[in-house]
């Protein structure tokens, strides 16, 4: 039988995933990858919610997770739509080439 994973593993994994996501979101140039990194960060958070629900025998964390997943989907839809247009306009989706709002 597989015994339950201790909480610490979940937290560790979540932390690693979040850090990878954060670094990726800051360092990568291609916005599609940046999007994926953001999804990674969101899911890292989701993982903590699920894990702590399990530990505390609660359900409220699950609700949050549903909301986060919805928001992530919506965000991806809107964000990708924007970048389709940006690509049509500039022929690229590199984040450091889109700086029209420079002060």
């Amino acid at each position, binding site marked *: 039988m597989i015994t339950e994973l201790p909480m610490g593993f979940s937290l560790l994994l979540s932390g690693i995933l979040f850090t990878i996501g*954060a670094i990726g*979101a*800051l*360092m990568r140039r291609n916005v599609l990858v*940046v999007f994926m990194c953001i999804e990674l960060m969101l899911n890292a958070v989701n993982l903590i919610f699920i894990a702590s629900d399990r530990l505390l025998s609660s359900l409220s964390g699950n609700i949050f997770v549903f909301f986060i997943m919805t928001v992530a989907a919506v965000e991806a839809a809107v964000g990708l739509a924007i970048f389709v247009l940006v690509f049509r306009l500039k022929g690229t989706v590199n*984040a*450091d080439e*889109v*700086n*029209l*709002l*420079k*002060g």
Partner: protein
Amino acid sequence: MRDFLWLIPLFPALGFLLNSAVGKRAKKGFISWVACLSVFFSFVVSLILFFEFLDLPPTARLFEQNIYSWISSGEFSVPIGFRIDPLSIIMCLVVTGVGFLIHVYSVGYMHDDPGYRRYFIYLNLFVFMMLLLVTANNILLMFVGWEGVGLCSYLLIGFWYEKDSAANAGMKAFIVNRVGDFGFLLGIFLLFVTLGSRGVWTLHFATIQQNAHLLGPVAGVITLLFFVGAMGKSAQIPLYVWLPDAMEGPTPVSSLIHAATMVTAGVYMIARLNFLYILAPETMFFVALIGVLTAFFAASIGFAQYDIKKVLAYSTISQLGFMFLAVGVGAFSAGIFHLMTHAFFKGLLFLGAGSVMHAMQGELDLRKMGGLKEKTPITYYTFFIACLAISGIPGFSGFFSKDEILWQAMSSPKGHILLWLLATITACMTAYYMFRLFFSVFHGPCRAPAEVIHHIHESPKIMTIPLMILAFLSVAGGYVGVPAVLGGGNLVGEFLAPVFSLSPHKEVTWRLVSEAWAATGEASHEAGLEITLMVVSVIMALTGIFLSYLFHLKNPALAERFVERNPRLYRLVHNKYYVDEIYHFVFVRGLFRLGDAAMGIVDNTLIEGTVNGTAKLLEGIGGRLRKIQTGYVQEYAFILVLGAIVIVGYLILYPLF
């Protein structure tokens, strides 16, 4: 009729509205009928009221009617209300009567003017405002009329606004009047506050009269401030400078507004507020002094003017001075009497001048006139009558009113022999310059160019009939005020007596005021002295006429030689003692300099500096701060993460220490 007082100002207001509404295509005939009839109806209403008065005992001759509550605040209220008493009914009759004649005259005079409709709109508005001024039952409504006639005066002086001189003259009149009106307004405020602080919140004439004793010594200041307003409106020293320039307007306007009615508003105001003035003997003395000095000063300027209307303007200022002399020595009814006769003969003189200009194709210069006697007989005779009336020749209206003033100046308790002396000399000067004008226009050889001479003709009937009616009034108008010593009853004085007496006062006031009256009142007529004074003034007038005849008809070389001998004096008088230039230098230029200084120091340096400095400062800060906005999304995200790390780090590390 006592419930229909509002009809008096209503008709000209309707005429004004109707003529404004009909639009540009209205026929001239229609416009003139509306304008003239509206004034005529007011005249009829005034006349009916006048006859109603005659049936009543003197103490009952006071109608008041409020038609609308204009301002109402706690105990204080100002209605739109009218008050008809002997004083205002005389004013109404003069304004509407002379006004009607001048309207009719204008139909002929302005016939070919492109601004025909505009002219009559302004004229009706003027009559409305003037009637509001004289019939109002409170100071505030009177002030509305006061400002309204000022506005109409401005509009009509600048009637031919394409001419720079006319537009400037209008502005000058308006601005000079503003100075006076400022004093008037301060007077109203001070009166209101002083009475209010003693528990009576009112601007209503009758209530002020009942409570006049509460004012105490402040009455002197209040009356002085009111007199400043009168100085502006009635062209007295030092605010008379606008009236000669006001002659830029059409001649009937000069006649109606700047001779017969509006400029006498100051005299009316003082007569209306006589219950305040008698409580302030110092102010009354000041009024008399300013009056007699203005009379003398303006008459002397009239000696050396060559513009027919300018001579008449200075003569008007001089005659207004006489009226102020009268009210200043406490002879209110004499002042109002002279106001009335002056309205007749000075209105006539101006209309006559208009007729002369009509004949001479707009010529104003006396040096280019002469010999009009044969070609314009009606103008000649009516003008002659007016000249005799203003000179004070016995039998004509001016004689009775002017003599009454001279007599009061000498012998009323407030009078003084010096006032009389100066006024009598002025009367002589008046006769001189009026006949100088008369001889230059109508006698001697005509000095105009040939083609003008060829066209000289008498004015149409519509202009000459008003002249004749006014000429009749210039003679007959005096017989309502024949002094007792000549066997008359001084009807006008008797009629006005209830206004200038103490009956409506309360107990306390009564004592105070009756004392004041005892020290003021009109002089009792001592027959011997009065006859002597009369003879002296007639001799003076005849001397003036004779000198004028000598200098300007019999031997014009004499006048020229006099000018040659005294070139300096002549230039000084001809240039009106350089008063305009002095005012220009001191006030106009002074204000410009003040304005320049204010512009340079306050505006350009202080305000501009503050505003621009603020802008520069913000621009500098913004210039530095904008560098933060790089436009790279990931940099923003990096800073965001950094911030999060700092906050989380703080939250983690803080409990450890």
